[in-house]
């Protein structure tokens, strides 16, 4: 039992890949490096797919990327509604990044969303976007007033919500990915063949995509709510 928990703890640790020798050494984590790899992959795929676009006689590649872009824009546009259309690119980007980073566990790479710091950063980006969307739409005076809606009594609740929204967003994503990772590691230790492959389909593919969807869904729901 002690050996098992030691092995599990070793797997769960977020490793430092290398240290930048600046300002007394900046540690670069595994999750940051994996995020860079995902960014590079997305950049290469985007450049490849968008090269040589034509108005007449589009090639197969162009049709493929066009239908994908339309699909994802419809998906996020439906969630955001007509009034918040300008946030579609951001939400789509987050959806693609989260989708890839959640299912990357299939290739035996540790998913970056397993690191609490990554999900905290994403949730902070979300809450800043939500509040700044409200500020832009309503103007400073109305924005401050909106905290006292529907009654002045609930103002503390509304202020508390500023902290609760990002907390539950980041904890939900982190908790799901982390729990899936722990269960997969435990199963791999107990039964090394066949069973992990079947469970991987559920935990990595299905659950990962659902959680990516839920994250952007809740973010766009909050945006929609904030600019009403």
């Amino acid at each position: 039992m002690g050996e098992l928990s030691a092995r599990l703890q070793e797997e769960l640790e977020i490793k430092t890949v290398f240290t930048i020798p600046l300002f007394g050494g900046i540690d670069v984590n595994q999750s940051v490096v994996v995020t860079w790899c995902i960014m590079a992959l997305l950049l290469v795929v985007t450049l490849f797919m968008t090269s040589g676009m034509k108005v007449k006689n589009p090639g197969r590649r162009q049709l493929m990327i066009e239908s994908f872009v339309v699909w994802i824009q419809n998906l996020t546009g439906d969630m955001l509604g007509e009034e918040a259309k300008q946030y579609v690119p951001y939400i789509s980007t987050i959806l693609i990044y989260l989708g890839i980073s959640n299912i990357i566990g299939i290739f035996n790479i540790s998913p970056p969303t397993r690191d609490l710091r990554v999900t905290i950063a994403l949730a902070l980006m979300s809450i800043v976007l939500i509040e700044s969307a409200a500020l832009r739409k309503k103007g400073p005076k109305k924005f401050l007033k909106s905290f006292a809606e529907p009654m002045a009594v609930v103002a503390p609740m509304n202020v508390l919500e500023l902290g609760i929204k990002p907390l539950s967003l980041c904890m939900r994503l982190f908790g799901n990915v982390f729990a899936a990772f722990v269960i997969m590691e435990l199963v791999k230790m107990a039964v090394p063949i066949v069973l992990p492959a079947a469970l991987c389909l559920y935990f990595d593919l299905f659950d990962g995509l659902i959680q990516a969807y839920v994250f952007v869904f809740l973010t766009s729901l909050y945006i929609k709510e904030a600019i009403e």
Partner: protein
Amino acid sequence: MSLTAIGAGIAAITGIGAGVGIGIATAKAVDAVARQPEAEGKIMKILLLGCALAEATAIYGLLIGILIVFFLQ
């Protein structure tokens, strides 16, 4: 060590609430789709949202369990 293990086990009880909640939500969603198959897309969306919110309690339980195991040794 054994007492912290019991504590983590108690924290895992939060799973009951999430399980019951998601179960009820899914049952109602199945009911609704059976009655109105054309509203499937909308029902699916609301179901996902409800499941995500119901699941949050289980995730908090998991979080407390992890904190207990790693920090109360």
